[in-house]
């Protein structure tokens, strides 16, 4: 195990966040606050409660997920795309470090950042609404697993992308819509039966529902199902990443 190698990548990536503190931390916090003001205050004044939970509190888990997913994907994607783009990847490829260790460094750093960000947003939301977390352990577990899986997805994206457009298109055109349609701001149970069935094909429904359950004990789908889907997603991402390294896909000629 090349411990120093993993640490080098991890600290390098964390330092990069430090340099782009505003973009990495401040802007997500600002946009979350905006969501609170618009959705929580404006719409919340009409909806008031969903399943016995005040609307302002109800959207908190969804908002955290929204930020967690987009930030995990963007951070991890950029982390590996950038050295490919400028060419400094040569050093990583020529180092005595295994594929697993490379992933550990990059994805570990991206996941760490997202988790910290998730907690910051959670703290921010306390300023707007009183929240009681029913299953703190599961809340952290979902936070961790989601950050990890989607950082892996970002890593995959960063290796696959051949240009900055592709790098931005996935978070923008796939993740964000799926989160919105996945019950960020509403319970999927309010949808007509047909659309409710459609949402079951959206993997993010399971994440958001599971995460919301850890807060309020209410869920759109069964919690075991949520955990299973999260783990399945993680496994698929891991399989793709290991295939990348085995074949040298887009990394080596």
């Amino acid at each position: 195990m090349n411990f120093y190698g993993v640490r080098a990548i991890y600290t390098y990536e964390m330092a990069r966040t430090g340099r782009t503190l505003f973009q990495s931390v401040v802007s997500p916090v600002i946009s979350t606050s905006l969501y609170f003001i618009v959705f929580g205050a404006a719409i919340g004044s009409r909806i008031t409660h969903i399943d016995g939970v005040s609307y302002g509190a109800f959207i908190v888990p969804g908002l955290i997920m929204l930020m967690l997913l987009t930030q995990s994907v963007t951070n991890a994607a950029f982390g590996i795309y950038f050295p490919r783009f400028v060419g400094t990847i040569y050093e990583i490829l020529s180092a005595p470090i295994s594929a697993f260790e490379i992933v550990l460094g990059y994805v570990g750093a991206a996941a760490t950042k997202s988790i910290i960000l998730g907690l910051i947003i959670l703290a921010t939301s306390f300023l707007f609404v009183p929240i009681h977390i029913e299953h703190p352990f599961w809340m952290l577990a979902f936070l961790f697993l989601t950050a990890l899986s989607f950082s892996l997805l970002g890593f995959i994206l960063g290796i696959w992308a051949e240009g900055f457009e592709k790098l931005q298109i996935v978070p923008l055109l796939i993740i964000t819509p799926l989160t919105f349609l996945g019950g960020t701001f509403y319970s999927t149970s309010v949808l007509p039966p047909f659309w409710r069935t459609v949402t079951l094909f959206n993997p993010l429904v399971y994440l958001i529902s599971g995460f919301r359950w850890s807060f309020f004990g209410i869920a759109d789908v069964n919690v075991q199902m949520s955990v299973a889907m999260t783990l399945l997603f993680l496994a698929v991402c891991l399989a793709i990443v290991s295939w990348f390294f085995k074949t040298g896909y887009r990394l080596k000629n």
Partner: protein
Amino acid sequence: MTAAISVSHLNKTYASGFQALKDINLDIRHGEIFALLGPNGAGKTTLIGIVCGIVRPTSGRVTVAGHDIIADYRAARSLIGLVPQELTTDAFETPPATLRFSRGLFGKPPNPDHIEKVLKQLSLWDKRDAKIRMLSGGMKRRLMIAKALAHEPQILFLDEPTAGVDVELRKDMWQLVRELRASGVTIILTTHYIEEAEDMADRVGVINHGEIILVEDKAELMRKLGKKQLTLELRERVDAIPAALAPYRLALAGGGTELIYNYDTRGEHTGITDLLDAVRHAGIKFKDLQTTQSSLEDIFVGLVSRDSGAGR
């Protein structure tokens, strides 16, 4: 003793279908400076890339100090430092930070003294607080050498290390390379400045169109292929070469004031004594004489053009 690097039956065909390396067999000895020469596109960078793990070989085997570069990549790679041809550096880091990164990546525990030493050796210590993007091109090139040395490699690949480095610093750089060799580091370098290879290398390999066309001890190579030229400066101008001197195939130069004789150092008889006798008999007096030897560059150009001619 196992070779520092051993390449056998190595082939590389890129995804485009282009075959960049054709059945390369090559042994690099411990502690030598090996110059890999070849025209643009010959396959030098590809070969280096495979040994360092950046390019995947299509077939064949490479070992580094006995360690297979694929099966035993950790052991193999940790011995190697690479200075790639392309200038690729981070922008926002400082030189010591990027060296710490390189060292860590290669699995070595932190050692600020070593980092300081390397930065000083490459005259970059003054720039230790500068962001990399504020360094000049030559400084970045030296920074890449420093990065390659950060983990104290035993084998160093220098792919065109002197491109864009000024004369003074180039000398310093070669001095450093000599010191590294003295400390036991094996060095493989490519350069288009053949005189540098002539100065530095113990052995020379020439690659062209993906094939190794020659590997030779440099001194031996110069001796074998080296043409020597004898120039006689005449006291008086002559209009034509006397018929008696025809067998020597002399050339008349300097407007009739110089006679030039080409001979081969490989020959048993260089024919100089006979020539001088013949010149005297012909009644030609000379005031001075000098010999020059062809450089590695002449040899290289000769080899590559002959090879290309044969290939067509």
